[in-house]
């Protein structure tokens, strides 16, 4: 029978392999460099979310040299595949594993139970365990800086916002942006288009075009490609980059970008895991700690806009300014945050409403 033969061949090859070559690919755990595994949801060539995480991985390699050995798996589907890949990384000798998408959280927790000696770092999420830490960036702080610029730069008062999916990250980003922009120009209106994809440059460009056609003179994006900046450049309007500095795609259009900067965090956690000081934690850091950075301001940022942006940025870093300080009304008129109050972190995640001025 066919399947018997084929399987027998594979098993035969397996047996041969284990006797002849097995020692080669599974180095003993105690000896040798400290192994670190990375799990990416997209290709490292996405020039967006996964690309930035991979930059962090390279920074770890540059910092520790021969002391560490990193490996990564890219484009891992968030379904049943991720658990297998995480387990493979752990059983392959990784002592520290960074799983860099929310959809990996439950898989990481399951594998972590089986590998108590391995440390896990879960990017975005909300559950931790004795050997699972969680980390994320306060990207909404960067959105507030963008909003301050947009409030000054927009002449039409209409700002287009291309969203991927309405996850908490994106929703609070839209809200922080709009609040900051309307603080400067209360007439600002933010139009949101959802493209239902993290990654479809063509569709993102189409969404940007339709927003520009409907009066938007600044385009903001929460998707992963640089298509938005490029389209804005071609149409002579402004745009904000996402994940990384995208000014080469629109030297005139690019106002600034929110840059995800994981390098320092990854280096610190690697060091902690190596010297034994690693502890379970839940970290949500922003502009102050450098996970969120602003790319250099482009030529479209006026002096007034620059001053407002810097005031917002330094205020957030100093802790004197919170982007969500009340009173905040949603776009149906209900007061959601009372005057003078600032929401806690959990409340930020639970935002499933949009602030006044958002049309989503």
């Amino acid at each position, binding site marked *: 029978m066919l399947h018997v033969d084929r399987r027998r061949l594979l098993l035969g090859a397996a047996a041969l392999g284990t006797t002849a070559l097995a020692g080669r690919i599974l180095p003993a755990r105690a000896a040798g460099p400290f192994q670190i595994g990375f799990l990416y949801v997209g*290709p490292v*060539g*996405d*020039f967006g979310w996964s*690309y930035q995480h991979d930059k962090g991985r390279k920074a770890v390699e540059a910092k520790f040299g021969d002391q560490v050995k990193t490996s990564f798996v890219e484009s891992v589907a968030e379904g049943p595949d991720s658990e297998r890949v995480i387990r493979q990384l752990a059983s392959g000798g990784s002592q520290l594993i960074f799983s860099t998408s929310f959809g990996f959280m439950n898989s990481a927790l399951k594998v972590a139970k089986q590998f108590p000696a391995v440390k896990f770092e879960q990017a975005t999420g909300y559950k931790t365990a004795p050997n699972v830490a969680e980390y994320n960036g306060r990207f909404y702080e960067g959105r507030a800086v963008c909003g301050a610029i947009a409030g000054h730069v927009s002449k039409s008062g209409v700002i*287009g916002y291309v969203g991927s999916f309405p996850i908490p990250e994106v929703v609070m980003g839209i809200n922080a942006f709009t609040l900051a922009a309307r603080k400067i120009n209360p007439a600002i209106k933010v*139009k*949101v*288009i*959802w*493209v*239902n*994809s993290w*990654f*479809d*440059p*063509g*569709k*993102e*460009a*189409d*969404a940007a*075009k*339709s*927003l520009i*056609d*409907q009066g938007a003179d600044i385009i903001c994006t929460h998707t992963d*490609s*640089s*298509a938005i900046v*490029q*389209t804005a450049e*071609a149409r002579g309007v402004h745009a904000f980059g996402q994940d*990384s500095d995208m000014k*080469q*795609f629109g030297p005139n259009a690019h106002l600034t970008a929110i840059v995800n900067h994981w390098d320092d965090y990854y280096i610190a956690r690697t060091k902690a895991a190596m010297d034994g000081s690693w502890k379970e934690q839940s970290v949500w850091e922003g502009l102050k700690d450098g996970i969120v950075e602003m790319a250099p301001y482009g030529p479209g940022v006026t002096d007034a806009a620059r001053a407002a942006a810097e005031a917002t940025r330094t205020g957030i870093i100093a802790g004197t300014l919170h982007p969500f300080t009340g009173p905040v009304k949603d776009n149906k008129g209900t007061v959601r945050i009372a005057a003078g109050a600032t929401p806690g972190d959990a409340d930020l995640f639970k935002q499933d409403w949009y602030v006044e001025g958002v*049309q989503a």
Partner: protein
Amino acid sequence: MSAEMLVSLLLTTMTAATPLLLAALGELVVERAGVLNLGVEGMMLTGAVSGFAIMSLTGNPALAILTAVAAGALLAAIFGFLVLSLMSNQVATGLALTIFGTGLSALIGTGFTGRPVPGLAKLPVPVLSAIPLVGRLFDQDALVYLAIVAVAAIAWFLKSTRGGLVLRAVGEADLSAHSIGYPVLRIRFLAILFGGAMAGLGGAYLSLAYTPMWVENMTAGRGWIALAIVVFAAWRPWRAAGGAYLFGGITVLQLYLQGSGLLPIPPQLLSMLPYLGTILVLTLISSGPFRARFSPPACLGKPFRPPT
């Protein structure tokens, strides 16, 4: 909706439809010759990355486009060898081609991520582009025009030329075509190469004109939509143009609707519109007075071996 908005919508539709149309036209010719190639997505990606690489290295758009065409055709040649010479299953081989092409394009593109290139230049049509309001529709890059010219050319070729007649004969009745003395396999191979070339061109449109950049998987499923358009078109070029513009048009329209805020329904439902709309329109034309008396080419997907 103002007239100006309508023109803008059409303009965006044209760019959205062009890559679909280019790839669909190629596949249409392949299928009329009796071969089903489901590898369009892989060929588009390979074309996109090859064209982009050459553009990035040389800055020569003509050379970049030619490279994309050649790369698509080269990938198609692998498919052609497998399904024609070795008579492997066409559906499975086409799917394998998509997996192969996706990997290959990522491999080629490793060094080209995040590098911008200048987009294709706009070529205004004299006189027409000067018309107020609609003039904008006649100020596009070369590939948009080429796609429309290709529709006419392929329609004419299939209907009115001897070559077109032979191609159709090969797709409808391969044994008879063979017995009259036509080289069935050679004609099919040429058709497959043409299909690959057009898919490569469609890919190049994405990476050189639509969004001039390279990122992995940037076709985002357009190869599959192109395949559906061929079916929608009942294997006729002008209907393929209709299908590509319909699909592109609804996609763009739903984005405009979201932006306008006029329809307060979930964006997921709006995003379903292009797919549901295509099914609905096809059902209407299949059942109404225009009922298409046109079934797939009789030999579609079947291997051919000259009798000895």
